[in-house]
């Protein structure tokens, strides 16, 4: 049975934050969290990526039970979990990941000459406003963009959208990342998101250095095999024919 702790109580009486188990070999499938509220049972199925996120469960009093679909060993023992105050469990380090967008994220490239495409902070920090701090390591100037956007919320059942569909009546869209603009070409930057109390890791990346097209060497790359074969054989045959014609004419004139 996986222990659950109340992490913190929010200021509103109705909300509790509960830890979820960290991923382990016995928890490979989707988990189901059930609680009962005034004799009615509620449950939600978070998707498997939310094992490190924070869930909000309204109302009390409640019984909490975590059931794993994968293993029945832990499933049906009804045990009332009591609140363990003072046993705060650190869910994870307070850092989340930020990275450049790559081709697998659906863009051609994340590095332009004067802008960069960054991934978004995780949806667990939803509705909080995001600040970006970055620093040009060459000139050592820092810049902070305050409250650039609010983190987008998760949805309980996350559908995979692989296309942007626009049939003229509706458009579905998805949010890929944030574009940092007005950067200088060919410089290295260190970027970090700050969302409330959480900071991301520091991403060190450089913008593209724009090259001069006159430096491209557009001379003959190599002679292909076809060219060599055709040239050699045709030249030899031309020579043979010419010699043969001269011999023929000479022979016929000499023979007369």
């Amino acid at each position, binding site marked *: 049975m996986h222990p659950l702790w109340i992490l913190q109580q929010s200021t509103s009486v109705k909300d509790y934050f509960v830890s979820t188990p960290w991923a382990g070999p016995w928890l490979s499938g989707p988990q189901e969290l059930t609680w009962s509220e005034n004799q009615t049972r509620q449950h939600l199925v978070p998707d498997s990526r939310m094992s490190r996120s924070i869930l909000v469960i309204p109302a009390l009093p409640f019984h909490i039970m975590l059931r794993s679909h994968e293993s029945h060993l832990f499933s049906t023992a009804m045990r009332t979990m009591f609140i363990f105050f003072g046993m705060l469990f650190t869910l994870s380090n307070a850092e989340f990941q930020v990275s450049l967008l790559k081709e697998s994220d659906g863009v051609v490239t994340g590095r332009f000459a004067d802008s960069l495409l960054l991934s978004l902070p995780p949806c667990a920090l939803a509705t909080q406003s995001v600040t970006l701090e970055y620093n040009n390591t060459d000139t050592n100037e820092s810049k902070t963009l305050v409250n650039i956007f609010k983190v987008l919320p998760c949805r309980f059942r996350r559908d995979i959208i692989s296309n942007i569909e626009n049939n003229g009546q509706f458009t579905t869209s998805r949010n890929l990342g944030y574009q940092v603009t007005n950067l200088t070409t060919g410089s290295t930057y260190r970027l970090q998101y700050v969302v409330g109390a959480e900071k991301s890791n520091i991403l060190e990346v450089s913008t593209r250095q724009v090259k*001069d097209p006159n430096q491209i060497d557009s001379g003959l790359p190599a002679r292909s095999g076809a060219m060599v074969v055709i040239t050699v054989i045709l030249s030899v045959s031309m020579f043979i024919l010419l010699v043969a014609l001269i011999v023929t004419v000479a022979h016929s004139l000499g023979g007369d």
Partner: protein
Amino acid sequence: MADGKGFTCLMVILILGNIFGAAAGLALCALAIWVAVDQFKLYPISGVSGKDDIFAGAWIAIFTGFAFFCMCVFGILAAAMKSRALMLTYLILMLIIYIFECASCITAVTHRDYLVGNSNLVKKQMLKYYAADGDSGSRITLTWNKVMKEVECCGTDGPVDWIEYNSTFREKFGTDYPWPTHCCKRKNNYDVVNVEACKNGQNTTMFTKGCFNHIESVFSRYTWAISWYGFAVLMFMFLLLILAMVYYLML
């Protein structure tokens, strides 16, 4: 030596060979006309670079193909009439045409190597001339727009070419649009599907493959038509001319 079974046999072979050679020469003429017409409209890429001998070879092959046809018909006549003078004329003229056709084949395949051996020349030309002023600039721009639209591609090796290198396009229009809007997918009414997404480089709203594969395959197709088929015709004519010289010696 003038009559005999071997002699008659050789005469028949020569006549049949000339019939076949006439057909082959006419086919060469027709194929060279196809290359010269340039259905894919890629001539400006080779024309502006100065390496346009694929098409020069095609023009030469039109004339030599037709000349082979005429000379082979004449050769039938000369062999049937068993005339030394006619056979000598035939031999000398065929040799001259042979030399011209050799030139066509060799130059077509050499210039193809210059143009599309690797993507550098096409890329440099695109970066320099796309959106440039002047006659070369407008021809290259029109050609690239057509290719990007029809083949659904962007840039030479990919859209990254536009942001990796400086270009006339970037100098003229700034960095707001990293690549031309012809790289973006369009609806049937020619509106761009999503301009902002295309500017950011989202895969679903723009073309991400490079155009060089198409350009290389077109120029290669033209070159193989002129140089390899011309080579085949010439090898046949070589044998035919050797036989004709033997026949001349027997006359």
